[in-house]
């Protein structure tokens, strides 16, 4: 543990959630167009993801950008690695790379995934504001 509990909490959240999106607002109620588009791309892929709203405390954004060296919000992390912001995520969504990165079936190859065949991945998480 460092003497920076907020940074520790952010690092822990990134470590413990395979797919985690730091955004302005929530997936249900995004507060910025870029966050909204990024969350929508993830929702379209259909894999569960954790979401953290950075708005309640400006220090979340400060610490996050400090540790990721990425200046803007949103930021998507997969398996502990920064994947990118809105531009990269939407570009990856369009090329099918996002499905690949999240371990989801490509939509063109498998338009409908039977519910019974879903792998026992992580359950949907509601991590909103837990860093506050």
């Amino acid at each position, binding site marked *: 543990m460092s003497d920076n509990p907020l940074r520790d909490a952010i690092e822990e959240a990134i470590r413990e959630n395979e797919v985690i999106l730091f955004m302005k607002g929530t997936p249900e109620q995004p507060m910025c167009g870029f966050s909204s588009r990024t969350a929508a791309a993830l929702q379209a892929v259909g894999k569960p993801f954790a979401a953290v709203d950075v708005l309640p405390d400006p220090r979340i954004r400060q610490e996050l950008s400090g540790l990721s060296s990425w200046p803007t919000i949103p930021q998507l992390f997969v398996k502990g690695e920064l994947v990118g912001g809105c*531009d990269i995520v939407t570009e990856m969504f369009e090329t099918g790379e996002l499905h690949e990165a999240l371990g989801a079936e490509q939509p063109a190859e498998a338009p409908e995934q039977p519910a019974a065949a879903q792998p026992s991945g992580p359950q949907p998480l509601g991590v909103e504001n837990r860093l506050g």
Partner: protein
Amino acid sequence: MPTPDELKARIENAIPGAEAVVESPDNVHFSARVRADAFAGKSRIQQHRMVYDAFDEGELGGAVHALQIKTEVP
């Protein structure tokens, strides 16, 4: 207030050989299309970081409220 021309110059100075097309409807929200040989062999994250490096800390999200980036290798 920053202008698209200023941003274009900043990006092209920061990335040698880069060619940037910068547009903005309001001089607050910008979109930049950047082509550079220097992007070859780099991940998207690394390419976008190179563009971000043209800016000072706090500038993105501040004076440049939003910068949409599309990178390309010629």
